[in-house]
């Protein structure tokens, strides 16, 4: 575990990455404690037609929405949806992408090539477009959005893992363990996985941010959350009709999205520099 400790220490030293980490911790806290933190937890269901579109004030720090809901409270609950989407989508993508990448990287021959070509096909379509197609066919709902995002993101992991595995395979110790006749499974999980871990972590962190953006876009286009859900992209879509007067209505959720994605990107970049000096980033120099 000292390695983890070391990693954390490095993150702490990298100011930007640390900022990212702080943002994300804040996000999780908001999501978990939403019912306690929210000034008006009921406003997820409750409506107050008489106090709609109130500008920010002491009672409503971020103002109220088109049905009188307290925007701050709704944002806090929205954070839950955002996290759920990002985490589940990434989890599923990992669950699909990593094994495929490992297998394709470990075994040579046409099955591996085929797997990689399939991945390429998915990567040939911009994610959001493919996600739209899938989500629309499945019918608009958050679970389907998650499904669509997972179905479109796994190839990124496959790519990374594949490349890493192949290079690791050529390193001597793998040859050695092979020589000792240890079975593929053992080799993959004891030797390859640890080696591909760091690029996966980096990719996942950056992927979270990307996924959150895509998910928000889908909701904005009306593919995600059902009406009056506190989901951030959805809220922005609803707020448009009340511009320019109700500027706070559109500003708040947008900034929320921005901060969270920023958090993941900063952390991701930081991790990339820390875990994987081979990959050069703009920040590295």
């Amino acid at each position, binding site marked *: 575990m000292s390695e983890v400790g070391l990693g954390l220490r490095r993150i702490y030293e990298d100011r930007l990455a640390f900022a990212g980490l702080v943002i994300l911790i804040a996000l999780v806290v908001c999501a978990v404690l939403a019912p306690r933190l929210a000034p008006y937890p009921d406003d997820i*269901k409750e409506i107050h037609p008489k106090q709609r*579109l109130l500008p920010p004030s002491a009672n409503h720090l971020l103002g109220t929405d088109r049905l009188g809901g307290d925007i701050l409270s709704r944002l806090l609950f929205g954070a839950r949806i955002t996290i759920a989407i990002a985490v589940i989508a990434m989890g599923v993508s990992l669950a699909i992408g990593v094994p495929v990448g490992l297998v394709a990287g470990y075994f040579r021959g046409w099955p591996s090539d085929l797997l990689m070509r399939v991945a390429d096909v998915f990567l040939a379509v911009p994610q959001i477009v493919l996600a739209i197609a899938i989500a629309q066919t499945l019918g608009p709902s958050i679970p389907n959005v998650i499904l669509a995002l997972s179905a479109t993101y796994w190839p990124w992991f496959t790519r990374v893992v594949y490349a890493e595995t192949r290079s690791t395979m050529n390193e001597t110790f793998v040859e050695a363990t092979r020589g000792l006749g240890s079975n593929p499974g053992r080799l993959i999980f004891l030797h390859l996985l640890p080696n591909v871990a760091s690029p996966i972590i980096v990719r996942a962190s950056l992927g979270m941010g990307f996924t959150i953006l895509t998910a928000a876009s889908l909701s904005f286009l009306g593919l995600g959350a059902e*009406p009056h859900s506190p989901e951030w992209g959805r809220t922005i879509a609803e707020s448009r*009709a009340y511009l320019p007067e*109700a500027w706070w209505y559109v500003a708040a959720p947008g900034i929320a999205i921005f901060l969270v994605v920023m958090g993941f990107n900063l952390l991701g970049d930081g991790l990339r520099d820390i875990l994987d000096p081979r990959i050069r980033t703009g920040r590295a120099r």
Partner: protein
Amino acid sequence: MAQQQRRRSGSYALERYDPAVGFTAVRFKDHFLGWGHNQSPIERIDFRSVRETTSVVLGLIKGDFHGTDGFLPADQIDRLRKSENVRIVEQETMRIFTIQLNNQRAPMSDVHVRRAISYAFDYDGFNNGVLKGTVVRNPVPLPNNMWGVPKGVKGYTYDIDQAKAELAKASVKIDRPLRLHIVAGNAQSEQAATVMKAGLEKIGITVQIVPEPWPTLTGRAQKVETTPDMWTLWVSTLYADPNNWIGESYNSKYWGTWKSSSWYKNERVDDLLERALRSRDQAERAKAYEEASKIVVDDAASVFIYNTKEYGPFNKRVKGVRFCPVGSGQEVRWMSFE
């Protein structure tokens, strides 16, 4: 969506059309009604189809547009009121808004449940809060300003206790979330649905809101089994007779059309509506419609919400704006620039 194309242009001839842009019409000189009534008629009209309401309003305020159709969100009308370029012509029309209940399907088959639902909608909150009083409460299956409306029918009010009481009387159990279908991308039906949902959850009924394109909805309404538990519906004027509303909606002989999508069945009402339809005697017809209305309201066949007010925002320079309730639009023949 500002659909200027909706305006009738019989007295104007189409000159140019582009679905992405809109169309241009020029005055049709030899229109059978002639133009004697209008000294300086408008020679040329550009109709632009603009998707974003906000753009329409901005255009009106800046004076790029001289008019638009009446159905604008309340908040936009507020903005227009503030502008010195725009004059808003206001009048109650005959376009009523209801939430349809599928009377043939449990639990809505139980009159007490239907009443409970009707008590659970915050009419005042929606009409005067969300829509800022740009509509008027319309508790009956006919536009308030139509003849045949029964006198002194208050209809239902937002009253959770009453709702609970009614629900207690209900014989059926509500063991599933009710599906409330709305017109996809239509902000007002979204908000109405949300208000309905909020109210129903107070009395322990969960609601799932399902956005669907309009053609799908009307399609569903053709069969009782595909008709949603509830859905938002506007009935506007095709012809100025009570039958256009209550008749086509609650006379079971019309089953299968989307207007009658509440699948309401009541011998007495059927009988009354038939008689009203056949009779020549205005007084008798009125009585029949009034009585039928009372029953339908008492049965809470649908949730009757409001009757639309028409807001014709026009550039101050435009004169002679008159409304035509049928198809609710404004007749350009009468208009002129000052």
